[in-house]
């Protein structure tokens, strides 16, 4: 898609992948942080990680396997919390641990069967060896997220503000909420080969956390978070490939550094003192 700008094919694929992954993840990060569903995002990213690991071990394609497990987990979380009559965070803690255990178990098995490279890609991502179809799929999911956000913007913002008040207003909260979970699970699953199961969570939280330091309205967060994510991710991809550094971990570290810097200079932390 961007070959006319970047003649180097490997770099072009990496930039395209990072562009779409960061755009989609950053938009979802606004919802994840403002709806306080970070633990859901965390669990789903590890569910996709486990799905990818099981799929790779059994010889299936990573992305479809990750999508299936991730979506199953998304639709298991609500009923499981209700049935166990425990706080959602507790249920998610159990699910997260289980998913992590499954992923590590199969990755350990893969190391012994000559699939070490695939295991490593699952853990840390690999932007260099992506297929064109994977980038198209990523672009498609990102467009789906944008369309969903535009189409249901008012319902989404009302739910982000206060789920119960949104329900009282007469909004059908459940379909929108499950729609958001579905999109998170799709995005998470499709981003695993790019940024890796262990690092994906950075993309799902940090862009919004940085934007939050400077934005007073949700609309501005939806604009600023993707811009920040794109700049950091594309820069990370270019630097990583130019200097032969691992792109995923490098970008994740830059995200964290920018977050620390943003907290330090955030206008939200200034103390006004008028001496009159």
């Amino acid at each position: 898609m961007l070959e006319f700008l970047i003649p180097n094919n490997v770099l072009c694929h990496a930039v395209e992948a990072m562009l779409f992954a960061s755009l989609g993840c950053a938009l979802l990060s606004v919802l994840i942080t403002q709806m306080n569903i970070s633990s859901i995002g965390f669990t789903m990213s590890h569910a996709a990680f486990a799905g990818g690991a099981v799929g790779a071990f059994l010889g299936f394609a990573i992305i479809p396997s990750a999508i299936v497990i991730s979506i199953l987990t998304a639709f298991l979380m609500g009923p499981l919390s209700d049935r166990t009559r425990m706080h959602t965070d507790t249920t998610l803690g159990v699910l997260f641990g289980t998913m992590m255990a499954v992923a590590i178990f199969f990755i350990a098995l893969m190391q012994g069967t000559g699939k070490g490279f695939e295991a490593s890609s699952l853990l840390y991502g690999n932007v260099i060896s992506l297929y064109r179809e994977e980038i198209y799929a990523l672009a498609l999911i990102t467009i789906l997220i944008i369309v969903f956000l535009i189409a249901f913007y008012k319902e989404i913002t009302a739910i982000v503000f206060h789920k119960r008040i949104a329900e009282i207003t007469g909004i059908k909260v459940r379909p929108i909420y499950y729609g958001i979970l579905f999109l998170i699970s799709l995005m998470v699953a499709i981003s695993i080969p790019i940024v890796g199961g262990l690092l994906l969570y950075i993309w799902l939280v940090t862009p919004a956390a940085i934007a939050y330091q400077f934005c007073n309205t949700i609309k501005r967060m939806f604009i600023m978070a993707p811009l920040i994510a794109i700049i950091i991710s594309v820069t990370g991809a270019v630097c990583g490939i130019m200097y032969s550094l691992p792109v995923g971990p490098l970008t994740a570290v830059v995200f964290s550094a920018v977050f620390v810097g943003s907290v330090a200079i955030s206008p939200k932390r200034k103390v006004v003192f008028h001496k009159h």
Partner: protein
Amino acid sequence: MTGETKNVILLNQVYTTYEGADLPVIQDVSLQIKPGEFVVIGGPNGAGKTTLLETIVGLLPVVNGSVQVCGHDVVRDGCAARKKIGYVIQNYDFHPFTPFTVEEIVLMGRYGKIGWLKRHSEYDLDKVTTAIDNLGLTLMRHNQIGKLSGGQQQKVLIAQNLAKEPEVLLLDEPFSNLDMITREEVSNLLCEIADAGIAVLIVSHAFDALPNRTIRVLVMQNGKIILNQQSDPSDVESLVRTASVAA
């Protein structure tokens, strides 16, 4: 000859429960409310007052009986019913940096009526402006809700529900965060709303700011309505106290 006015709220032998509760929290409650009635619900803590409001809004499972609001069964057709109900909740806690302005939040009151895939119209914005002005929030219109005081936040939520143009307005402890002057302002506003034909139900422990009009008093105890009668505002407190003590 005019026919009898229809009830906007109709509860018939309702039992409501929370998941995991040993007994229904609301037990055998039957109630009819007509348009323009002003109802005060009193009783001790844990009597089921808030649960009754949430049952009317359709937020809790009804295990027996039926709840109808404006002709809609809230169990089967909750969304349609909720488009006609305003409900100002009691417990809310907005973070100082909640990224929403007063105007945005009041406009959210219209979202259910606007419907899927549609944008707000000039009419919606007019309703928002009127509600904001009525609650004295004009100067705070573009402020973030988290930066306002508890009383001002309460006024924003009341404005949100007024912008909705409800046929039934439920308020849980509407005076709890308000100072004396604002209590009277809100009380007068609620009186005007009831006079305009909207049924107003409030759960309250503060009876000193009730509007000067006929009030229906409901007293609840252990999930049941133990008193249901008309009263003057000045007698409401003694009625609630007497009924609660006698029970």
